[in-house]
């Protein structure tokens, strides 16, 4: 019995020592200088080398983590979220908490406001329709209503309202990831500052045509009359290419501009109902 124990210990010990020495020598001789953070990150990983992350082994994953600008896409099925948090700490790749933003759809061209003059029968994608022509209305700037933004959203925060034919953003779910902004072929969606109680006030139109032309294709188009610019006390509204724009940073939410707009192109959302002229604000 003792023989077995002795032999086992000797053999294993000898092999272990041999392996260790060889590895040590080899590692010395063939040393390659690498980003030291890779090792640090690798230490936090489970070293299961299971390939579950889609990359061949934990080291490859660590390298990918070090290389990547945005590590939120890289996931290890074995590691806990604490480990990942620690890794992001090592890499310092946590994006600084930005000012909260929310996506806003700058078009109010419902079928009632913006009559259809043809039927689109192509692939139901805004990008396809936009490359082809102006869309089902005459407004070459307006929302095509085919939902590329809805598809782009990974957080289920944007949905098509089938009555208005326009997308609507659920503010609580919106992470301001910019995906819909990039996807919209007409640049209708904008990320704007998130205000208290999700209040917002903005020009729901990006039509740069001359007033008459814009008005002809859509009842609620901004016609570039400039009344809102005069009404604003904070210089928050600028007029460019026949189009008013409310700077979300300068805007103090005073609501002076909205009643001035002759076409109701300025939308106020989540404000208490106005005492006078309440009927005109049907946007809630």
């Amino acid at each position, binding site marked *: 019995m003792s023989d077995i124990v002795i032999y086992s210990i000797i053999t294993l010990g000898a092999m272990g020592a041999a392996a260790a020495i060889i590895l040590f020598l080899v590692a010395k001789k063939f040393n390659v200088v690498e980003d030291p953070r890779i090792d640090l990150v690798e230490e936090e990983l489970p*070293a*299961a*080398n*299971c390939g*579950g992350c889609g990359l061949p082994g934990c080291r490859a994953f660590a390298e990918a983590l070090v290389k990547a600008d945005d590590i939120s896409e890289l996931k290890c099925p074995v590691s806990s979220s604490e480990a990942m948090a620690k890794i992001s700490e090592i890499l310092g790749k946590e994006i600084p908490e930005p000012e909260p933003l929310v996506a806003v759809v700058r078009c109010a061209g419902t079928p009632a406001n913006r009559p259809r003059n043809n039927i689109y029968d192509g692939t139901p994608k805004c990008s396809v329709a936009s490359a082809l022509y102006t869309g089902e209305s005459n407004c070459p700037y307006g929302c095509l209503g085919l939902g590329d933004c809805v598809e782009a959203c990974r957080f289920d925060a944007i949905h098509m309202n089938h009555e208005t034919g326009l997308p609507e953003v659920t503010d609580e779910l919106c992470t301001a990831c910019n995906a819909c902004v990039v996807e919209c072929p007409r640049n209708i969606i904008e990320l704007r500052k998130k205000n208290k109680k999700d209040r917002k006030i903005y020009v729901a139109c990006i039509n740069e045509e001359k007033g008459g032309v814009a008005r002809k294709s859509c009842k609620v188009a901004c016609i570039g009359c400039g009344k809102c610019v005069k009404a604003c006390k904070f210089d928050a509204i600028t007029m460019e290419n026949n189009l008013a724009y409310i700077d979300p940073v300068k805007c103090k939410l005073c609501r002076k501009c909205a009643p001035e707009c002759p076409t109701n192109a300025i939308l106020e959302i989540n404000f208490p109902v106005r005492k006078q002229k309440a009927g005109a604000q049907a946007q809630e």
Partner: protein
Amino acid sequence: MDQAKNFTKGFIRENPVFILMLGLCPALGTTTSAFNGMGMGFATMFVVLMSNIVVSLIKNFVPNKVRIPCYIVIIASFVTIVDLVMAGFMPALHEQLGLFIPLIVVNCFVLGRAEAFASKNTLLSSVIDGTGMGLGFTFALTLLGAAREILGSNAIFGLQFIEGDGMLVFILAPGAFIALGYLIALANKLNKQ
């Protein structure tokens, strides 16, 4: 960490087979019947538990550079113990599981637990984690084994409930893949709810 949660996570939420897709080789290779699956599950569970204990005990003495080889040696020792014990006491089951007993050593689930959990947590947590995950693994293997046995030989734990042969294909390799595929789909669905 909440120990109860720590214990139960292995069943569905972080089930090594259904969710993490670890340890698939024994999960498919040994589950020709519910009993075989369970046997393999318990053997693996023993190794996970023991290696978790040892790793958690020695975690402060092992230099970081050589920790992986150390863990592998620890695991391999327990695997050898299981192998020898099973060969001695349950030769029939040992024969059935065959190659997959020594291969527990390369089951990335076992090493994963040692590295990801036991090397960073207390002894108690590690024991609970090892037991929970081990039971989850056993549960998965038993379930898969049961499904294959029911479909493949009209029996469960060896008890014939319908006369005649079942769908032989479920005892064979293709059935294993297909059955696990649908079980994972089911687990995903349950997990979502």
